[in-house]
């Protein structure tokens, strides 16, 4: 069999893989950036929503209700195109990370709120009784215990986020789906290219998913003790 007999798309494969893998790198960067941003905002607003202060609780409530009610794509367009009209010009990757963080933060703040509230009241009382301020008690006593509780939903969120980053193609962030679209319009091998993309997504999400399952099993065992 000579090279001429091979399906035409095989000869393009190195070129496809090159473009898709460089896209995958951006996908990972946006996922990690968006995840870290979401967790930071989630902890912050989760703490706000369980705070003693009515003002902080209201701020958290407004944030959650607004961003939980908006499609991710709308948020991304506002950040990328909308902010540009008032002079704040973000590059596509930064805009995507910002959008995913704000949106994910609203979702995760509810997860963290539930996690924080699941910690027995006696824990913060004990922390206060040895002279901790509410802030110190949160940082060293409540938060570490809440994070254990929310690890499984956090891992699920990470998998969801990995897939959602494909939306960043809409603001021209050169992640995997964006590069795939470009390849398709150049070569018209839509089926082959998108199957390749699917395989590459699975290469990233399956290990994450496996890690989540292991984590959940470990947590279940810890609880059973």
């Amino acid at each position, binding site marked *: 069999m000579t090279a001429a007999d091979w399906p035409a798309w095989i000869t393009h494969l190195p070129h496809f893989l090159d473009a898709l893998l460089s896209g995958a790198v951006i996908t990972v960067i946006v996922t990690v950036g968006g995840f870290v941003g979401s967790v930071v905002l989630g902890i912050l607003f989760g703490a706000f929503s369980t705070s003693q202060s009515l003002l902080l609780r209201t701020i958290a409530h407004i944030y959650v209700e607004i961003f939980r009610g908006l499609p991710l794509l709308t948020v991304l367009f506002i950040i990328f195109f909308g902010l540009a009209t008032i002079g704040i010009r973000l590059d596509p990757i930064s805009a995507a990370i910002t959008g995913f963080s704000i949106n994910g933060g609203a979702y995760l703040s509810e997860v963290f709120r539930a996690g924080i509230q699941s910690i*027995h009241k*006696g*824990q913060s*009382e*004990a*922390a*206060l*009784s*040895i*002279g*901790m*301020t*509410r*802030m*110190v008690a949160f940082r*060293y*006593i409540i938060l*570490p*215990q809440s994070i*254990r509780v929310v690890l499984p939903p956090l891992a699920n969120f990470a998998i969801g986020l990995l897939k959602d980053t494909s939306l960043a193609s809409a603001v021209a962030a050169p992640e995997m789906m964006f590069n795939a679209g470009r390849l398709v319009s150049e070569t018209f091998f839509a089926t082959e290219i998108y199957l390749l993309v699917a395989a590459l997504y699975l290469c990233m999400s399956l290990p994450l998913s496996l890690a989540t399952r292991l984590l959940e099993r470990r947590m279940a065992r810890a609880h059973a*003790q």
Partner: protein
Amino acid sequence: MHDPVQSIETNNAATDGAAADQPIVRIRGLRKSYSSLDVLKGIDLDVRRGEKVSIIGPSGSGKTTLLRCINRIEKPSGGHVYVDGQLIGEKLVGDRYIDMEDRELARLRAGMGMVFQRFNLFPHLTALQNITIGPMKVLRMPATEAEAAALALLEKVGLANKRDAYPEMLSGGQQQRVAIARALAMRPKVMLFDEATSALDPELVGEVLSVMKQLASEGMTMIIVTHEMKFSEEISDRVIFMDHGAVVEQGSPGEIFRTPSHLRTQTFLRAVLGRQAYQ
């Protein structure tokens, strides 16, 4: 806005100053209500330095709430608490009492150790870390110093070999002893015990009581809410009987347990101790 508040506080400290004969805990007109329910109906109580005071009474009498209002884990609805001459949780500005900032209240709470019925050890920390975290994060003690002090305390409560155990690996009695060590690590002026043995299996009560006895013999000021009448009789300088949010009577253990003057005290003790104690 902060300056006048600050200077008033210093004034208070100066005038209230910690004279040796002054009560270490002074409670005045302490009230607590939840909507229409009055849990504490104006409690006045002084505790001397080094005194051991037991608070007994039926459940719902307000004894636990009283204890929790002393270190302001629970915010009283009225009245005032002074520890070592220092007003707890409030500041007198002009003739008005205003709430203290979280940071200041925390500093004062550090001087009052509390032991809870359900231990409330931090489950994500080892026995040793449970004890060192207060000194390290509140008193900013260096780790090596905090650990040395914590090990000495574990030794004292007989658990030096459990330093690296997590709470879930400890028995209730062991957890409560670690909890006592955790409170002691802050070098408190007064220790508050909230039914410290009520959640324990009967065979584990003794080990916790013996740690408390040792502490008493070392001169610690202790306020003990308890159902252990025998222990209370043995250890207390004074016993306080509470019912329906008020102090019904108080006196030496002999007076309260042998010759209680109020009918309610007699009824309660008869129910708790059984009739034979009065034959």
